[in-house]
């Protein structure tokens, strides 16, 4: 619980709050990228170099771009602007969010004594990740690859407009 953890958490919370409370949709997407970067920095602070850098590469470099493209291409230019950020059913939303947080907190706190002290955790190198992926977790890896390929093909098929008549 060092000072950098608090700073990074504040950054992430600011990014997340901005993502839900800003009025302009593209501003929300950019604020979400700040939250992603904060998460990547938290990974780096925990010495998980591969996870942190892959987080930046994948989330900020691809997912954030995808989100802004989706916002851009599905709205006309006049609609991008103000929208009401507080919904009318905010009380139910608050109760649900509190319930989810309670479940997650209970799960984390219950399993916390099982893990050793932070100083005893071995540093995970990229080589160990690679060996684990190719050794113990090779079946989940292949299944995820198949799933991603299916999603890609499905997205192209769903999005492409089939023209009847002339090509």
């Amino acid at each position, binding site marked *: 619980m060092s000072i950098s953890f608090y700073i990074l958490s504040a950054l992430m919370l600011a990014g997340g709050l901005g993502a839900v409370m800003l009025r*302009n949709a*593209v*501003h929300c997407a*950019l604020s979400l*990228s700040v939250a992603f970067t904060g998460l*990547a920095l938290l990974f780096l602070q925990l010495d998980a*170099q*591969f996870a942190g*850098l*892959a987080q*930046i*590469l994948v989330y*900020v*470099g*691809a997912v*954030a*771009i995808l989100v*802004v*493209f989706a916002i*851009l291409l599905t709205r006309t230019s006049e609609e991008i602007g103000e929208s009401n950020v507080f919904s009318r059913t905010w009380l139910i939303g608050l109760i649900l969010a509190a319930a989810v947080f309670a479940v997650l907190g209970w799960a984390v706190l219950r399993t916390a004594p099982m893990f050793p002290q932070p100083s005893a955790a071995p540093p995970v*190198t*990229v080589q160990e990740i690679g060996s684990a992926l190719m050794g113990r977790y090779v079946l989940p890896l292949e299944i995820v690859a198949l799933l991603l390929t299916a999603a890609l093909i499905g997205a*192209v098929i769903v*999005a*492409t*407009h089939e*023209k009847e008549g002339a*090509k």
Partner: protein
Amino acid sequence: MMQTLDRIFILLRDWLVHFLPSAWRAPAGTVLSVIAIIGLFPALFALTTVLERKGLGRMQNRLGPNRTGPLGILQPVADGIKALTKEDVVPFRADAIVHFLAPLLLVVVVFMGFAVLPMGRNMVLVDMDAGLLFFFAMGASTELSIFMAGWSSRNKYSLLGAMRAVAQMISYEIVLLLSSVAVVMTAGSLSLTKIVEAQNTYSFGLPHWYIFTPWGLLAFAMYAIAAMAETNRTPFDLPEGESELVAGYFTEYSGFKFALFFLGEYLGMFSISGLGTTLFLGGWSAPFSFLGWVPSWIWFFSKVMLSICVFIWLRGTLPRLRQDQLMNFAWKFVLPITLFNLLVTAIWRFLGPGWPRWFVCTALVVGIYVVMGETGMRRGKFGPRSYRYAE
């Protein structure tokens, strides 16, 4: 004496830091190295703008800038004064915060890419175990800043240019990463210092640079193509082509912000050339073993400037690719070759050292190039161009 010259910057930094109390020495050393990088690469950028304009001018049968100083050498000074004194025009309906942050983000992210390049023996700012991944993570963040620049200007040309640029950069980033994976497979590490040290061995006086291997040559060619596309250089500069899109995603930027974008683009060129040098051309190692007495940083910067000269040469020579040609080229030609190159690298590694692997891998490399050239260059029918859009 040559050992001292090789380590002269390290010795200089240690001597300057020596005046401080010992608790402050390590941070102060890092700060000094950062200042050196921030000072050196913009100076090289200034030199490169003159080189480029004179070089392009001579290739286009005209003189380049020749009024400011002898042979136009003081042109960057004139450009800098112009950029600093121009009025900073922000369009009325533009998104002011995002418009302001876009060039800032670009320059910050590009400077951070320099942190992991080994510029000489023991001369890397941060020796990360996953240094290559860090570099690519920083490269991926530049796409976001280009998109921010294009969108915040509320200008159709800017938005079109930004979207083209982002599509191009995402497509070629896959090629960039996969061609570097071949190097990582052979060197066995993501750390850039280890990759350079793996290439620093000599046999019969010739170096073991990865470009001199069949898979390395193919990977270097693909890396060079992807590097030109990542930095939006001709022949891939449709997003910023002057005759196509006014000025693409930096149409609405004037004065110092435009200078920052320009700086960011050229620094991106430097850093990607630096990475290409580290991965394929042996980083700071000398071309022949008897030239090992020359300081290592001289070799690194010579190779980077050579790559920059090749960039400028290609800019003056090749015509611009159209957007659909560019994307076709990436997905249908370069990417399959890069994937096949991974297979060739694996075969190279597992056949073990000796003569057979040279024959097999050279045959495979030439074969895939010929096959892809035949299938890719074949045109089905010359009818009116037809498009399929995604809704």
